[in-house]
Structures are given as structure tokens and as C-alpha cells.
């Protein structure tokens, strides 16, 4: 098999708030024999502006994204939501640039959420991870990963193969955690009410670890778990899959 090369799109949230998720992603990919580079000009996919109604800003950022990742063979991000923005919305956003249409289509076809890349492209299900001590793990389906990208089976396959992880399904794993970007601040009461129900389902599993493919959802659910002093710990799937594997640091 030819050497796989990917460009990491680390996402603005992971870059600034959860750099260890970015490091885990790199470590994991290298452990699986993939060459990883990091286009240093990258910033954000534009989802914040798009969801806020600032389409013109989102368009400018999307256009920039296309340019920054122009030379990349494949693009991998530890986020379903950011990848979904590219897949589901760049076509709309960049409609005013017909000269980019082909490039946008090609960009969409080679941009992957991490678990999607591992399972669908590399064909890997067991990455060789081993937890330091056995733990019960529950998986939250992030809305955009599941509904825009069809990512649901891939993370579960990867998690099932982790030594020491007991994957336990929660009730309504596909129901939203109530984050929704600025929704969580603009409509904090509603967001919190949705979150309360979600966490009830998380905790009912007795899980030690709550995992997902998006740091944003985990930030939301994890922030409340922490506030409540819960024993369930949020952990991005990249970090979980990195447990116990040999590999270089990013």
C-alpha cells in the first residue's frame, strides 16, 4: 500500500482549548503509518459565522479554507461538525465562485472526520489501544457527524476493539446534547434543559468515560459533568484510541 499522507485540520476549538486532542490525532495517525502534516495557515472552517447568520463572513472563511488546503492529498479533522460544515455547506457558501466549484467538490471528497478516515479509508478497526485499567465507555452520537456524515458505526467499531473498554450504549445516544454553538449561550435555559436529560442518560449507563468525535459536544457535556462533580469523565475518541499505543508525540 502506498504511503498515506494527510493534512491535519485541527479545528479552532481543539487548537486553542484542547491541543491534546490534536496531539492524540497526530499520534494515532502516525502509529497507523500515515504521514501527517499541519498547514500552518489554517484557522477555522467558518461554522461559527454560518450558524450565526453571518453568511458573508462564513463565505470568506470557507474560501480561505479551500486555498489553505489546496495542496493536501486528504484532510482529517478530529471533529464531525467542522467536517460536516465543509461537506454540507461549502457548496452553498461558495456558490458565488463558480470557478471554485470543482475544487470545492474535490475538497469535500477528500475531507474526513477522524474515525471515518480510520475505518472507511484505512480499513482499520483495531488501532491497538489498551486502557490502563478496564473502563466502561459510552458513546454520544454528535448530531452533525451522525446526520450529515453518517458517522455512527465507525467510532463504535473502533471503541469495541479497544482493550479494556466496555462499550455501553446509552438511551437515545443520537439525541442532541443541547449545545448548538451560540444557542447554548443565547438560549441557555433551553440548552441546559436538553443537556440535563442527555446527562441523565449518560450517567444511567454507569460509564467511567463519555466519548464522542467532537470536542464541542464534549466541552458542553463535560462542563456540566464537572460542575455536578460527576465521576464520568469526558474524553475525545482520539485520546481514548491513543491509550497504550506506541507512537511519537506531535
Amino acid at each position, binding site marked *: 500500500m502506498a504511503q498515506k499522507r494527510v493534512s491535519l485540520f485541527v479545528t479552532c476549538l481543539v487548537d486553542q482549548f*484542547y491541543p491534546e486532542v490534536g496531539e492524540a490525532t497526530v499520534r494515532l495517525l502516525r502509529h497507523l503509518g500515515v504521514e*501527517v502534516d499541519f498547514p500552518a*495557515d489554517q484557522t477555522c472552517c467558518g461554522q461559527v*459565522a454560518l450558524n450565526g447568520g*453571518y453568511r458573508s*463572513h462564513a463565505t470568506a472563511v470557507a474560501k480561505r479554507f479551500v486555498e489553505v488546503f489546496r495542496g493536501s492529498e486528504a484532510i482529517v479533522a478530529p471533529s464531525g461538525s467542522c467536517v460536516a460544515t465543509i461537506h454540507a455547506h461549502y457548496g452553498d457558501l461558495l456558490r458565488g465562485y463558480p470557478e471554485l466549484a470543482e475544487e470545492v467538490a474535490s475538497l469535500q471528497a477528500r475531507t474526513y472526520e477522524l474515525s471515518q478516515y480510520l475505518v472507511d479509508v484505512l480499513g482499520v478497526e483495531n488501532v491497538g489501544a489498551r486502557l490502563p485499567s478496564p473502563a466502561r465507555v459510552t458513546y454520544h452520537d454528535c448530531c452533525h457527524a451522525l446526520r450529515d456524515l453518517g458517522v455512527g458505526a465507525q467510532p463504535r467499531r473502533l471503541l469495541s476493539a479497544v482493550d479494556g473498554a466496555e462499550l455501553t450504549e446509552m438511551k437515545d445516544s443520537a*439525541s442532541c446534547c443541547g449545545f448548538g454553538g451560540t444557542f447554548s449561550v443565547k438560549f441557555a435555559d433551553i440548552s441546559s434543559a436538553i443537556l440535563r436529560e442527555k446527562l441523565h442518560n449518560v450517567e444511567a449507563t454507569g460509564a467511567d468515560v463519555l466519548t464522542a468525535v467532537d470536542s464541542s459536544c464534549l466541552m458542553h457535556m463535560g462542563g456540566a459533568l464537572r460542575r455536578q462533580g460527576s465521576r464520568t469523565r469526558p474524553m475525545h475518541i482520539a485520546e481514548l484510541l491513543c491509550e497504550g499505543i506506541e507512537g511519537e508525540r506531535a
Partner: protein
Amino acid sequence: MTDVLSAHFKEQAAEAIGNATIQESLDRLVNFRQGRVDAIAEYGQERWDALSQSAREIKRETLEHLDYYLDELSRNVERAGGHVFFARDAAEANEYVAKVAADNGVKTVTKSKSMVSEEMGIADVLESMGIEPVETDLGEYIIQLAREAPYHIIAPALHKSKEEVSELFERILGTPAESDITALAGVARKVLREKFLEADMGMTGANFGVSETGTIVMVTNEGNGRMCSSLPRVHVATMGMERVIPRLRDVATYLPLLTRSATGQRISSYVSFVTGPRRSDEEDGPQEFHLVILDNGRSRMLADPELREALYCIRCGACLNACPVYGKVGGHAYGWVYPGPIGAVVTPSLVGVPKAKDLPFASTLCGACRDVCPLKIDIPRMLLKLRSDAVEGPAETRVPRRVESLMMRAWRRTVAGPRLFSLAGKVTSAAQWPLSRRGSLRWLPPPLSGWTRTRDFPRAAMRPFRARWRKDEGNRGG
């Protein structure tokens, strides 16, 4: 037109969240959800998807040539002896119905459930003329007695517990307290039976208007639609102009999609087909039949390629049942006739974004509504479009938001290159330092205070990923 209270979405939502009875009733939505899932499983997913695809195709074609099909519908209703009135807005529709009632010396009107009649606010108009409008769908009857708006497209009194209904009947009808639901329905049935016999005019909605035959189709579970359309002297049906379908056989496409999505039923208890008034050789049925076809902003949606598909909606209510927001705030929060995800699209589209400025934003964009929609309407995408109308659209749709737009402009400059982006990260991290305890923040100032009321917020990393990458770049290998 029914008053638009959507500007008070936040207060109305907070009220619902704080009301234990309402939360309990919203928990019952799970039955609708499960019913739908089971009904589709029984039907077969592949068959279901194919049916859904045909339904989209028919809608696409019909809306493409809406003028043609409405004209055909109108001609065929008239051929069957009925009258057709095209109303540009609710006021015109009300005026027409009021005139029909006045011309016929009507004293009592029995109504079956119709969202369009709610949109018009016809009950108030009739009442102001000294005519008694009586809702005959049990749920609608309950909320009429309570003087409230429908809570859910197909379950208007979803939010009422049986205790509340018993109290309501006791207070208004003077009937003894009753804790058994069947007995409560019996109370209403007794009252309504009298009204059915006494009514001079019946009003119904129309789930479909079949243009090739001039037939309106009503889908009900209580049989009240058939009573309203057959007992009184005059029958007035109201329908949104998008509800026309070309052929009688198209009903077979939409009916299973509607009932299975709505309640999980294979078919509703009653499906009534009405073509014109009573014929000369018939003994039963009304002497007059009127069909009021309402625009009320629908042409504007039709003209907008990004909103047009919202007119595919068959009002099954599945998106309400699936929506995490509706599941917490309920129907009244949305402040008009159509609640939930489809309401968040339809309300601003029909009444104007500024009057319903919160609705397009009151969604996590999770996409559950699109998943369950039998017509696969991409509601989240439409919400994004309405958001951009509110932020960047023409003056008539724009809602001023000065501070936010300044922040967004700053954000755009920040993400325009890695240098400013890194700097912003450092500034954030430094600013958060005094507020943070063990890597997270328990309090943030407005506008972020809403987050920290229930959730800790993470502290920005001292060394972001890009700084770490730069340092170890030389180590990379395959």
C-alpha cells in the same frame, strides 16, 4: 389573523421549562416517536423511502405549476356545485367566511381541526358577529374552553393533564369532576352532539385538495370532520394554497406518510372525501359548499428557492416530536399557530422575520427534524437561511444586532490568518487566568454568563496545538 406572540419566545420558553405538568406532558411525546418508528419498520424502510421520494416528486411538480393545479381544482369544485375563494391574506379569508355566515343567517358553527383556520383566527371573527364557533376535535374543544392556542399540530391539548381537563369541564360546563379519560371524552361528546345537530354551518380544513376531481380530503380520528361537513346546511373548507395535489391516486402516496409519521397509525379512523355540496338526488350533505384557499405569505415562500420546500409540509407533526427544543419548550413558546421546527421556518416566513426574530435561532441545528420528515424537508438549512436574512438580509427582514455584528467582524479578521488567530488565543488565555480554577471557569461575564450558570467552561490552553506542533516539527516521521 391570529396574533403573533413569537417575539416573546424566550419568556414563553422559560415558563414551560419551569412548569412540571408541562414537562411531564412533553415526556409523553416519546409515544408518538415510538409509534412512528414502529410504523415505518412495519412498512419497510426501503418502501418508505421510495414513497417519500414520490411524495417529494409530486410536490415539486405541483408547486412548479401551482397556478395550473389551483385553477384546475377551482374549476372542478365549481363544476361539482361548490364555490371557491382565493384569499390573499387572513383578513380576506375571514371577510369571505363572515359574509357566507351572514348571508345564511348562521347562529352556530361547528369546526373540525384546521391549522389554516387557526392562522386566520376565524373563531374570534365569528364570535364578534354573535355567532358561536364550536371546536369539535376533542383537543381543540379543550383548548377552546381554556381560551388557549393549539400546543401541537396534531395534539392541540397535549399539554393538558386529565385533572386539568376535568377542572376545566367542571368550571365551564358544570359537569362533576371526573378522573377517567373515557368518561371525560363522554362529557365532551354529549355537548358536541347537541352542537352538531344545532349548527347551521360547518367549517373544516383540508389535508389535500385533489385538483383533477375537485375533492377535498380530510384525515381525522374522531369522525368530527365528517359531522361538520355533512350535517350543517353550509360547509366551508379552508386550505393553504400548497395543499393541492394533482390526482386522486396521489392520496395513496401521502396518506400512509401522514398517518404513520403523525401517530404511527396505518390509517386514521376516518378519511373523508368531499366533492361539492349535496347533489339533487342525495338526501344528506350541505346545500352549499365553499372552499377558501389561503395564500397569506405562501407565494413569498414559493418564490424563494431556499424556502420553497417548506411548502412540501403535510403537517404530520413528526418534527415537533423529534425536536429537542420543542421537547422542552412546548408549543406555546413559539407564539403563533405552527410550533416546533417547521413552525420556526413557517412563522418567520409568513409573518416576517422581525416579528419572530428568535425562532430561526432557537434550534441546535441537530437535524433530527429533517431525519424524521416524511417529505425530507431540510429544515436546518432553512433556519440558516432565515438567520442570514435576519443578519444580512434586506431591510425588511433584518433585525439589528450591533454588538454581535461588531464581534463577528472582529472574529472574521482574527481567523483571516494564523498570526492574529494565535494572538487572540493568547489574549483569551491570559484574560481567563484570574477566573479559572484547575483548568476551568465557573463564572463568565455576560453574554457568556448563561453558559456558566449550569456548566463549567474550559480554559484556553497556555500552548495551543499550533505552538506545540512548531516545536516538535522536526520529529515527524511516518
